[in-house]
C-alpha cells in the first residue's frame, strides 16, 4: 500500500470512538495500515518537538565538531578529524577523564549512603519530624549557583566564615595563609561536598518514598522469624528498596556527570584545568577552539549514551526480578 494515500485519508480527524471514518474504499489491508497509522496525529507534535530540540542540536554538534572555526566564531571550512586529534592530544585530557570518574563515583556513592541514613531517620516518628523534613528541602530548593557562591565565600582566604571560625578556635594562625579553592585536591573535595549537599535532598525523598511503600506485615513476619535489626535491613529493607534505589542512583549519575554550575562557580575548573570535569573542560576549551569543544561534547555524548544503555539494561533486570 502506498503511504501517501493513507496519509491523505488520515487528514480529517478520526471519529470519537477511535476508529477511522468509514471510507468509500473498503480495502482489508489498507484498513490495517490505517489503524496502525491512527496515532500519528497525536505523536507528530511530540516527535517534531523531539526532532527539533534533541536530534537537531545533536546533529549540529556533530557537524560543528568537524568544522574549523576562527577565534571570532566564523566558520573557516571543514577540519576533518583535526578537532578530535587535537582533543586527544590535550595534555590535560587524561586528568580530566579520571577526575570525572572520581567526581561521579564519589558524589553519587556518598550521596546514596548519606541519603539511606537520612531517609531511615525520616521514616521514624519523632518530635519535629515535619520541620526536619521541610528543612531538608532547602538545599534542593535553593539555586545551585547560589549555593556554590555561598560556599565559595565561606572559603574566602581573608574573611570566609569557615576560615574565620578556624582562626578563632586557633586552628589557623593568620588570614590569607590558605586558599583551598586554589589547590587541586582541597578544591575538588570541597566541590564534591557541595555536590553531595545539593544532591542529598532529592535522593532522600526518593528513598523515603521507597521505604514508605514497604508494607508493615513484611517486617512483622520478619520479627516473628526472629531476625535482628541488621538482618532485617539487609534481607528485607534493601531488596524491597531496590527500585527506588536504582532510580535515585541513575538520575543522580546523569545529573552529576553533566553538572556544571558547582565547579564553574567555585573554581572555574582552575587553576588551569586542575579541577575540571569533562563538562568544564568543554567550556574552557570553547574559549580557544569551538570545534575542539564540540569534539569534547561528542565524546561526552558517547559517555551519556553508555550510561543510558546501562540504565535500560538495569531497569530490565529490575522488572524481571519483580
Amino acid at each position: 500500500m502506498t503511504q501517501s494515500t493513507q496519509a491523505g485519508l488520515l487528514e480529517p480527524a478520526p471519529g470519537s470512538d477511535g476508529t477511522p471514518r468509514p471510507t468509500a474504499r473498503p480495502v482489508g489491508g489498507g484498513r490495517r495500515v490505517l489503524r496502525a497509522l491512527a496515532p500519528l496525529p497525536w505523536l507528530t507534535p511530540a516527535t517534531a518537538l523531539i526532532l527539533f530540540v534533541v536530534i537537531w542540536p545533536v546533529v549540529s554538534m556533530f557537524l560543528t565538531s568537524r568544522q574549523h572555526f576562527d577565534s571570532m566564531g566564523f566558520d573557516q571550512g571543514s577540519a576533518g578529524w583535526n578537532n578530535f586529534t587535537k582533543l586527544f592530544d590535550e595534555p590535560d585530557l587524561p586528568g580530566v577523564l579520571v577526575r570525572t570518574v572520581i567526581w561521579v563515583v564519589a558524589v553519587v556513592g556518598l550521596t546514596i549512603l548519606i541519603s539511606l541514613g537520612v531517609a531511615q531517620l525520616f521514616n521514624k516518628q519523632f518530635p519535629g519530624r515535619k520541620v526536619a523534613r521541610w528543612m531538608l528541602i532547602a538545599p534542593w530548593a535553593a539555586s545551585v549557583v547560589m549555593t556554590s557562591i555561598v560556599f565559595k565565600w565561606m572559603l574566602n582566604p581573608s574573611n570566609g566564615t569557615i576560615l574565620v571560625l578556624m582562626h578563632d578556635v586557633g586552628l589557623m594562625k593568620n588570614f590569607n595563609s590558605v586558599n583551598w579553592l586554589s589547590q587541586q585536591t582541597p578544591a575538588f573535595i570541597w566541590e564534591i561536598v557541595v555536590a553531595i549537599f545539593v544532591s542529598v535532598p532529592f535522593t532522600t525523598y526518593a528513598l523515603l518514598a521507597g521505604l514508605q511503600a514497604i508494607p508493615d506485615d513484611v517486617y512483622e513476619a520478619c520479627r516473628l522469624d526472629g531476625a535482628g535489626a541488621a538482618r532485617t535491613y539487609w534481607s528485607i529493607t534493601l531488596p524491597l528498596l531496590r527500585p527506588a534505589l536504582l532510580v535515585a542512583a541513575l538520575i543522580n549519575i546523569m545529573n552529576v556527570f553533566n553538572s556544571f554550575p558547582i565547579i564553574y562557580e567555585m573554581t572555574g575548573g582552575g587553576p588551569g584545568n586542575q579541577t575540571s570535569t569533562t563538562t568544564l573542560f568543554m567550556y574552557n576549551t570553547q574559549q580557544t577552539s569551538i570545534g575542539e569543544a564540540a569534539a569534547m561534547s561528542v565524546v561526552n555524548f558517547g559517555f551519556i549514551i553508555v550510561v543510558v544503555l546501562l540504565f535500560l539494561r538495569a531497569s530490565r533486570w529490575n522488572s524481571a526480578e519483580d
Partner: protein
Amino acid sequence: MKRRVLALTAIGVAGVMSLTACGSSSSSTGSSGGNVTIKLLAADYGTAGTSNSTQTYWQGLADTFHKSHPNITVQVQTIAWTNWAQVATMIQDKQYPDILEGDAPQQFAADGLLYKLSDIMSSSTVSNLIPVFAKQEDDTDGTAYGAPFTTSARGLFYNKKLFAAAKIANPPQTWADIQNDAAKIKALGGGDIGYGLPLGPEEAQGESYLWMLGNGGGYVDSSGKYAINQAANVQTFQFLNQLVKAGDTEPGPASTNRQQMWDAFAAGQVGMVGGSGAMIPDIVKNGKLTNSDYGVVPMPGKSAPLTQTLGVHDDVVGFKQGGHADQIKQFLDFVYSDQNQIAFDKEYDLLPATTSASATLSGQDPVAAGFLKNVPNSVVYPSNTNWNTVLAKLKQTLGTAASDNASQVLNGLQTFATSNQ
C-alpha cells in the same frame, strides 16, 4: 505616530541606499540629503544604570554631534566588560554595529569585516594617535584597521601605612626588594598580603608580562615570533614560585583575579600590587586609604625598575556592512577632539590615545602625568593574528606556571601558540 516613525525610517533607508549606490562610483560623495543613523557599540567602563555608565558619555557626545550634524543620528549601546563575549555573538549573528569601541581583535580585520582606518578617520586625527599604539592596529601587510581609543599604563602601587609599620624606608626597585618588603609586611602578623600577585583568569597575561619584562623576557622574540618558553620567562616564573611558596603573596595566585587584589589593596590589606590609573576609583570608593597613604612607582625588575612599562589600549574600529564610512569619519573626528578624549579619561582615570590630548592632560593632572610620561615608549601585547586565541589559553593556564613545573607549563603554551596559527 508610529506610522510616521516608520515612514521616517523608510526615508532613512532609502537615503542610505542611495548613498551606498553613489559610494561605489566615487569614494566621497559628501552628505547628500537623507538622515542616517549609525550604530555605536561600546564597552561600559562604569556601572550600567548609574551616572558613571559609559552610556552617559557616549549619549552626550551623540547628542552634541547631532546638533551640529542634524542628518546623522548616533545610536549608542554599551556592553559591560564582563559580558564582552556577547559582541562576538552579535557579529556572528550579523548584527554589525557601524563603530565598535572596546576590545577589537585583529581577527575582525582578517575576516574582512572592517573599513581601513583611512576610510573612517581623517589623516589629521590619525597622525595625532600615539604611535606605539597606532602601530599595533596594523595588519600584517601594514594597513591599519583600527585606532586606539583609550590607554592605560602600569605601575606598582604600594601602601605607605604598611610600609611604615614594617619599617621599610623606600619603595621597592628590584625583585629582591619586593621579596624582602613582602616578607616584612607578612611578618607584621595582621594577615596582610605582602605582594598581590593576581595570576587568575581575569588578567594573568598582564601581571605575568610585567614580571617577564623585568627579566628581559616577553611573549615574543625580537622578530615577533612566539617565545613564551624562553629561558628568561622560565626563570621569572621560578622566582614567582619562590615568592608564592614563602607566603609573600596571597595564597593561590593562579586562582586570584586582578579585581580581588585591587579591592584588597583598596581595603588596605595589601602591601604592593601592580595597577593602573583604573585602580584609583576603587581606592577612593573604599575610603580606607587617602591620597597620601599610597604611592605609585615604576614596576621593579630583576635588577632595576622597568624603563618601559606595559601599555594597554582599547580600540575603535568601523564595520563596513552598514556602508556609512563618511558618517563614521565625521563622528570619529569629533570624538577624538582633545576635549572629548580628556572628558572620557577623567571620568574613568584612564589615559588618552592622542598625543595632543596627552599633552593637555599632563598639564592638568599630576597623577595622570606620572603615567603618561611612560606611555610613548611603553611595551604592548603582541599583535600576531592568533593572539586572541593564545590569549584565551594564557588567561586559563599561565597562572599555573608559578609552580614547580614552570618550564612544563610554558612549553605547553609555546606549543599551543605555534601550532594554532
